[in-house]
């Protein structure tokens, strides 16, 4: 795939993956990088899996990432992190996940064991891929978990060519008023990285 960079975002309907996907797509666009993207949602608003694909570079034609070729898997939820890792991440890719747990039905019916964070880490190290667990204590609104993830991606330089300026401009395209101020403050706080 040459000069392309593939991002696969996944989570549960209701977690705000649509905003995260639109934010990253616009940030990439603000960075002057050719991009194609596509949300995949059907019944997702009803607590199913929702995913979004984002492909960077002139060599990307389909907006959809081929299984096993994602350079970056971004998950908003733990069960979906391990699923995304297994099906989509390339052997040299990185998984970044927000460590929320929204137990799927078989877990709640006690027909399956819940996924623990340690299970995600074990699976990642077994495959020799990098995995980054993200969690922010005291977040006032779960719908801001996507901002925390976006900030982490920039702080760690995980999306080539995309910096905080691009994310800031992208967020300004999407929100205004108090929502913009609150989300931007959070994004900047996380995006400055652990050193700041």
């Amino acid at each position: 795939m040459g000069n392309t960079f593939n991002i696969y975002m996944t989570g549960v309907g209701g977690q705000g993956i649509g905003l995260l996907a639109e934010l990253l797509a616009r940030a990439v666009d603000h960075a002057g990088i050719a991009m194609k993207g596509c949300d995949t949602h059907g019944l997702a608003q009803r607590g199913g899996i929702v995913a979004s694909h984002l492909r960077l570079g002139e060599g990307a034609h389909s907006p959809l990432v081929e299984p096993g070729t994602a350079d970056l898997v971004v998950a908003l939820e733990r069960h979906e992190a391990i699923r995304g890792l297994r099906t989509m991440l390339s052997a040299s890719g990185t998984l970044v996940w927000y460590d929320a747990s929204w137990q799927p039905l078989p877990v709640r019916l006690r027909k399956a064991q819940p996924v623990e964070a340690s299970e995600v880490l074990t699976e990642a190290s077994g495959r020799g891929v990098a995995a980054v667990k993200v969690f922010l204590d005291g977040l006032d609104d779960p719908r801001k978990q996507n901002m925390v993830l976006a900030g982490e991606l920039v702080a760690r330089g995980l999306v080539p060519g995309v910096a905080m300026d691009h994310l800031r401009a992208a967020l300004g395209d999407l929100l205004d008023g108090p929502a913009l101020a609150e989300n931007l403050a959070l994004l900047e706080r996380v995006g400055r990285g652990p050193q700041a």
Partner: protein
Amino acid sequence: MKDLGAILLEREPFSELVIGNTALVRAMVEGGVRVVTSYPGSPTPEIADAIRAIPKDDRPFYFEFSTNEKVALEVAFGAAINGHRSVVFFKSVGLNVAADSFVQLPLMRIPGGMVVVLGDDPGANSSQNEQDNRHYARMAGVPVLEPATAGEAYAMMLAALDLAGREETVIVVRMTTHVCHAKERVPFGAWRKAPLDPTPRFDPDSANYIPLAASVFALKRKAAARLERIREGFETSPFNRVTPGDGKRGIIVAGTARLSLADCLEGRAERPAILELGTVHPLPRALVRDFLAARGEVKILEELDPVLEGDIKSLAYDAGLHTRIIGKVDTEEFVGEYVPDKVRAILHATWPGLVAPPLPPPPAIGRKDLPARPPQLCPGCGHRSAFFAIKKALAPDDITVADIGCHTLGYLEPYRMGRVLLSMGHSTSTASGLSLHNASRKVLCFLGDSTFFHAGMPGIVNAVFNGHDVTLVIMENGTTAMTGHQDLPSAGRNFNGAAPRIGVRAALEGLGVTNIREVDTYKQAELTALVTAALAEPGFKAIIAKHPCMLKFTREARRKPGWKARRVEIAQGICTQARVCLESFACPSFQVGDGARVEVHEDLCIGDGSCKRTCPSGAIIDAAGGS
């Protein structure tokens, strides 16, 4: 924040990051469209979202959500024979509903020009099948343009509007799910705003508008001549492209399979020649013939059904070509979306040296199977209370019939209610059939309120008329929830503002239903009792089980000043771990905690309290002070 409405009305050329559905709306603006209609259905509702972003008074066209796809198509047709360029859009299976009128359109002189936008759904992402609507277009003789990207959706929509206007006819723009939702930066043209000419121009003497008996033949000849004229134009359409390759191999491809193919061949030195078709019906015969004639073997890479394949093979036969044409070779080529890995597998099977096979899934490291995540009714959903309560009124082998809507999800564990599904509005009639020669198993069916108005009423009239022994539960949540909360006739509001409220109960009474009960689904014990009573009575019974869509309600409540989050919690000292909340009521807010404790998920619970009455020990209580 970017103002989408203002962007869509830009006067000068510009570019913007948009999805395919939004790009279509800009084409409608630039293309002089005056009337747009629809019935909501994935993957198309975002077209209406973009239209809504334009303030009503600034909108250069009229828009409505009609009561079903056939009605929407007819409204658009009526406007177009009055001279107003019109567009109707709906999902794949919507064309089945609209088909009775759709197939007549090519027989009509449509002076305004009309475009039907279809949201086909290869991959069945949000539909009950993968039907390939090119069949309908072929049957009726309607030209089809098929974009693969948001940019092409814009360009082809503009071209379709222009062609429809020039030929005074109807054109289909066939979108598919991942064209509707594909996102990219699209360059747009200028918009020369023109005043609306309100003159009603319908002229019944300018053409025959009554296709009856022998008069059909003349209309059919005229339609065939037009289709041939359009085909000749397609021979030189910029939407069809030949990319020369090496050797004697070629590929003919259309739709998003074109993008998957380009991905598979990216960076490869050896490439077959490629003919990409954007005008998929009628087939540009000379272009295809010349492409075939220059090659020894040609693969037709075609998502879903072999529509192009049949046309191309017959063309090759007539032209006496000896090119080896490779169509679909196994049933898997008929199934599913032609995503990059699917195309890679097909190409590898066709010419093993051309591309590597798809990457095999890596071996499992941890547990083999991860828990599946089926979609769920939302926290607080009134349907959950309804399923929980109604199940108590039914014997285990009673028969329940589903319909289309959020409540279709009742078929999943743990409710297992609504066990057969055909189409919008089928439930009462399917239930009526199930009640015949059946003295032992009660038959109960579900129907949503939007679906009631869409296609549900004829089945109800039939059940009254023919005296079927069926209990109908109308799940009234006050909105078209599953497709994103569009208004419906009982809302007292349409897309453009206030509207007469057509109540479900009044409509039922008007249809002759005399046995009607009504209850809020949160009153679970009462609902159980009502269903028990209804099932014991003969004939047709209707129960209106209502509760507002809580997703919509909560979203709206959050925007109001002074809103405070609420939730419930488990009084752990009282909880006996009977697990009714988790395993029978099954609100997703209840989670399994350490040591099999029941916990309430703070991110999910909305504090509606519909769960409280389900707890045998009363351990579900309001959380102090909210969260």
